[in-house]
């Protein structure tokens, strides 16, 4: 606590024109706890939203399964019609629901925009789940070395 025991140097900042609003420090604690609370709520909501996608994912998987069985039973003469139906089903499905399908099916239906969207979503979730404190240290170290 060597640094903390030292005489406050705040006046030096003030002498150079840097000031703080009146009562700023008194209200700080409440604002920090408010931020902690709102971040907890937001994380909870994100988790909830993520959870809410599961019924859709299950529905999409069932639809694809039913369609697969249906396709096996149909003759090749209705190929044009079934292609259109597949297209319609795929169009109806949200990109999120496709994540639960197998890789070949998923990649076949994704365009560049979908890919970027899903990729960014995945990155965002990772960031939420892991505090990148260590990375920040490395980044700063790099900055200071240069």
């Amino acid at each position, binding site marked *: *606590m060597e640094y903390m025991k030292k005489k406050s*140097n705040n006046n030096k900042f003030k002498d150079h024109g840097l000031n703080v609003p009146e009562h*700023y*420090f008194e209200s700080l604690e409440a604002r920090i706890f408010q931020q902690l609370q709102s971040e907890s709520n937001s994380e909870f909501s994100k988790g909830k939203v993520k959870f809410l996608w599961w019924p859709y994912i299950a529905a999409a998987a069932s639809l694809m399964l039913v369609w697969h069985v249906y396709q096996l039973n149909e003759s090749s003469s209705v190929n044009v019609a079934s292609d259109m139906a597949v297209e319609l089903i795929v169009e109806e499905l949200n990109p999120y629901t496709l994540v639960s399908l197998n890789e070949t099916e998923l990649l076949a239906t994704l365009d560049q925009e979908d890919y970027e969207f899903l990729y960014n979503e995945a990155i965002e979730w990772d960031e939420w789940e892991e505090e990148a404190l260590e990375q920040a240290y490395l980044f700063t170290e790099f900055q*200071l070395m240069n």
Partner: protein
Amino acid sequence: MSEYSESEFVAHLLHPSTREKAFKALINQYKEPLYWHIRGIVLIHEDADDVLQNTFVKVYRNIHAFKQKSKLYTWIFRIATNEALSYVQKMKKIQGMSLDSPLSSNLEKRLIADPYFNPDQVEQTLVHAMSQLPEQQRNIFSMRYLQEMKFKEIAKILDLSIGGVKSSYHLAQKKIKIHFKDKTF
């Protein structure tokens, strides 16, 4: 906070039943020195306020990661420094500036607009000169000159060699002298 040893205090921060009370004590103890430390890097009050709150939130969320290999204040100041430097980098990115360039022109404008900055003659103030420095030099200059920290302490917080800190400070000082020489007559 002073009635406990540091490891006892950290234990209070980690225990669910004492966590909130201990964290309040920590805020109370560190809010002013941390604020001025951050303000010395970002210079604008509004930015310092954002960074300070994020720093405390990060401390609260990551106290379990503090392994007590350094002093608690060193760890907290390091987080604050990282937060402030990351904030400056983020601002540069938003403004489409090169990450290597000093914030100077934009920071200068925002500094003048900051209601909590009172310059007599903007161009002749130390803060104005500091705004022209690259952030790591500004940080070291602020820690040494404004916060009156020892080189040893600065080196510990920034995880740099004492020699590296001294040469950065020397460079910053030199640039500030040149700034004053150019601006005052």
